[in-house]
């Protein structure tokens, strides 16, 4: 049986605190975009609504991407607030 696309999802800073954990494994039936992954997470648990709506940056395999980016298999997807280093 196909397991589908297994994605490691990471959260940082204020998002990590809102979710209450720093990472989770999420499985999707199909290749999907970042926007679709956000929707799937919200559908899975509405607690993601305040986490993922609003100003959130996304990185796939450690590169900043936009919502239309297609997530490859076995990817690491990170969600975090706008950065404040320097």
């Amino acid at each position, binding site marked *: 049986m196909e397991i589908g696309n297994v994605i490691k999802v990471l959260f940082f800073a204020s998002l990590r605190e809102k979710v209450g954990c720093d990472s989770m494994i999420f499985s999707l039936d199909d290749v999907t975009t970042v926007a679709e992954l956000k929707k799937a997470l919200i559908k899975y648990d509405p607690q993601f609504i305040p986490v993922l709506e609003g100003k959130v940056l996304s990185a796939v395999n450690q590169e900043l991407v936009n919502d239309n980016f297609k997530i490859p298999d076995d990817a690491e997807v*990170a969600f975090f*607030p706008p950065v404040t280093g*320097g």
Partner: protein
Amino acid sequence: MIRVTEDDFNVADEYRALINDNGKDGAVVFFVGLVRDMNQGSKILNLQLEHYPAMTEKALQRIVEQAKSRWQLGRVKLIHRIGSLSINDQIVFVGVTSQHREASFQAAQFIMDYLKTEAPFWKKERTPEGERWVDANDKDTEAKSRW
């Protein structure tokens, strides 16, 4: 060329490394960012710097490479600290050398503007009223748009 570390750095050592045996460059520009005692109207006691370890060096590397493709640069050094920092502590160092000053001045600004908006670091401040995550500053996004 890039260092992400809990340890402090010594500006004199970094300056020496940028100019040592570097006869072709006539300009060196460096910037040091420090922890301020006030931010967004509150007194700051100290701060915690979180980052995304697997991504941080990649992101910084990319920023330095972009700078190198835009200007003719000699050496570039970029240091960013993580972990617990107190008032007046050094947070970030960017040092750039080039034949003439214009490239170094611009590249140092470019690197800081991109670091401020694309490198995965987050500051959490401790104030007398409690802890809070620092909000990203729109001015930083505006500063980046000039490039």
